[in-house]
């Protein structure tokens, strides 16, 4: 069965699509009412965000667009020190989409939402002409657990932690696009539990960021600019799997600039660095966490290379395209 334009008509087929795929998977009391809007209980301060997902290919090793759509928004909320509570999901579906694929996407979203402890409480579908692609927008609300977590809040003597290996999502997607056979799997994952672990252990987190598009380099530059400080990192402390490193060497890519979907940095007071590291490493998504550097007075992002040379780490310009020689 494939999606055709009648599934966007608003009539019987639209209703079937919603019931047979989305309600089946997202099943919860609020959504099941099919009201025009979800009515929610929210106490205290909230974090609120939205993100759209247009990835090609839709399915890749380690996940699919649905998992990204849930994790992306969950992670954005988590990075603000919030506990993600509710998501909405808007689907723009091209005619020609395979119903089974759509079902798989919804199934994955359910699983990711369950793991992250969020409910998908409202949604929308639109069908457009096309050739079988799906685009998803999610928005989310989270309850603030810790106030003051901010990109502007990094201070000299803070330590910078990275939750694990770089570049795996980017490499998995590129492998899919290029038809390269390897075992690199996307790191796509909800980071809400790592954040909960940090806060539970009393870490006074100053700033958190997930290192998505633009990679670690871009996030660290944002830290430097917003907090008016210098970021110093050590190349030898940055975890990169051998397989991703090999992939990057062949294609002329730099893991520092590659997208991740389940990696974050946490900037914490220097004296809490070890405690924060221990908390991260106990979480299954932070086993490979490292302390990668610290914040000092000044500006810019600097790296001490493995050869003890110095290198400036600038933001990404344009798209990270492979070199030709």
């Amino acid at each position, binding site marked *: 069965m494939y999606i055709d334009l009648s599934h966007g008509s608003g009539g019987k087929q639209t209703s079937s699509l919603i019931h047979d795929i989305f309600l089946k998977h997202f099943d919860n009391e609020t959504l099941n009412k099919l009201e025009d809007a979800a009515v929610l209980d929210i106490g205290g301060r909230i974090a609120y965000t939205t993100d759209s997902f247009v990835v090609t290919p839709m399915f890749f090793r380690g996940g699919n667009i649905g998992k990204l759509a849930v994790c992306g928004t969950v992670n954005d909320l988590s990075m603000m020190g919030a506990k993600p509570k509710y998501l909405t999901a808007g689907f723009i579906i091209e005619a020609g989409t395979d119903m089974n694929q759509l079902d798989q996407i919804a199934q994955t979203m359910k699983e990711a939402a369950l793991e992250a402890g969020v409910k998908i409480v409202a949604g929308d579908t639109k069908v457009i002409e096309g050739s079988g692609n799906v685009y998803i927008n999610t928005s989310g609300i989270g309850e603030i657990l810790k106030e003051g977590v901010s990109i502007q809040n990094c201070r000299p003597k803070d330590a910078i932690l990275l939750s694990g290996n770089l570049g795996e999502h980017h490499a998995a997607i590129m492998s899919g696009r*290029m038809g390269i056979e390897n075992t690199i799997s996307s790191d796509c994952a909800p980071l809400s539990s790592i954040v909960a672990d940090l806060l539970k252990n009393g870490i006074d987190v100053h700033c958190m960021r997930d290192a998505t598009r633009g990679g670690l380099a871009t996030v660290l530059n944002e830290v430097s600019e917003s907090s008016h400080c210098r970021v110093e990192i050590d190349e030898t402390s940055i975890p990169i799997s051998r397989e991703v490193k090999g992939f990057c060497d062949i294609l002329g890519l730099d893991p520092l600039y590659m997208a991740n979907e389940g990696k974050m940095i946490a900037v914490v007071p220097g004296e809490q660095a070890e405690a924060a590291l221990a908390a991260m490493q106990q979480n299954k998504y932070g086993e490979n966490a490292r302390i990668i550097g610290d914040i000092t007075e000044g500006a810019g992002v600097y790296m001490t290379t493995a*050869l003890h040379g110095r*290198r400036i780490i600038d933001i990404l310009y344009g798209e990270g395209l492979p070199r*030709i020689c």
Partner: protein
Amino acid sequence: MITLERIVRELRDYDGEEIKIMEVCGTHTSSIFKNGIRSLISPKIRLISGPGCPVCVTPSVYVDKLVDIAGQERHCVLTFGDMMKVKGSRMSLTEAVAAGARVRVLYSPLDAVKIALEDKNTQYVFAAVGFETTTPVYGVLLDEITKREIHNLKLLTSLKIMVPALSYVCENEKNIDAFLAPGHVSVIIGCDVYKELAQKYKKPFVVAGFEGEHILAALYEILCQIKSGRHEMRNLYPNAVTEKGNLAAQSVIQKYFELKDDSWRGIGTIEKSALKLKPEYSKFDAGSSFDEFEEKIPAGCRCRDVILGRINPPECPLFSGACTPLNAVGPCMVSTEGVCGIWYKNRGGKG
């Protein structure tokens, strides 16, 4: 056995006359920055990036031709990503796509075969740019095109070769003291070719790999040669580079291509410095000869002086002001391999 620490110390403590070393491989340029090599060595050892980026030395008229082809009905240009942002005299391929032209970015030229077979009503043109490293793959592509009788896939070539460019630099820029010979190109052409250059121009030519340690070792070898008045070819990348190179790849090149004079963006015409399809294969050519061409260099742009090692990018009046990666004026700013692009990304670091 000499240690890395000793090499670094010798390079750092050098305090003799200034030595200018040119590298002619974009991957070397990139590795020098990534490893912070400049911060490790004496300021008396200056590293200069030569004409080692194929995208950067491709003339603007070539980009114009790609833009024209991509805009034609039922035509599509296939290209590596680097080429997308290079401005011709009017626009880049990225801008052409925004205006409705058809361009697809590929990672391997061989993907073009599948694409051409899937849509036989479109005339595909592959933007065949590169040095000896990439040219054999275009030969393999032509083998496939012939074998599978594909009629809707041609090449627009801008294929340069390295040795004439090195000779040109040696003839015209007496101030370069030594060369870090390219890694990838040497895998194909072998290292014997540099022996003649080393003797003729009395300059050390050292072939190096791409890791920071490889480059430091090569710089140290050059330093030792200069200190003792020698000028030899040394191959420090013997795992990958042999004396004669990859003969199979060379024979693929020779099967399809022959030498021609060609224009290098920013430099001018260099005799027998490029490859074109042999006459018997002209049916695969999408119109690659640009005889009446005259390169218009944008006002103020000093890419020529950068490529020839006369100045470092920050000495160009346009660098980081009018010319940035997001709005590149000169070709050296466009590519990730381009000297100016690499310097811009690392600006503020020790040059």
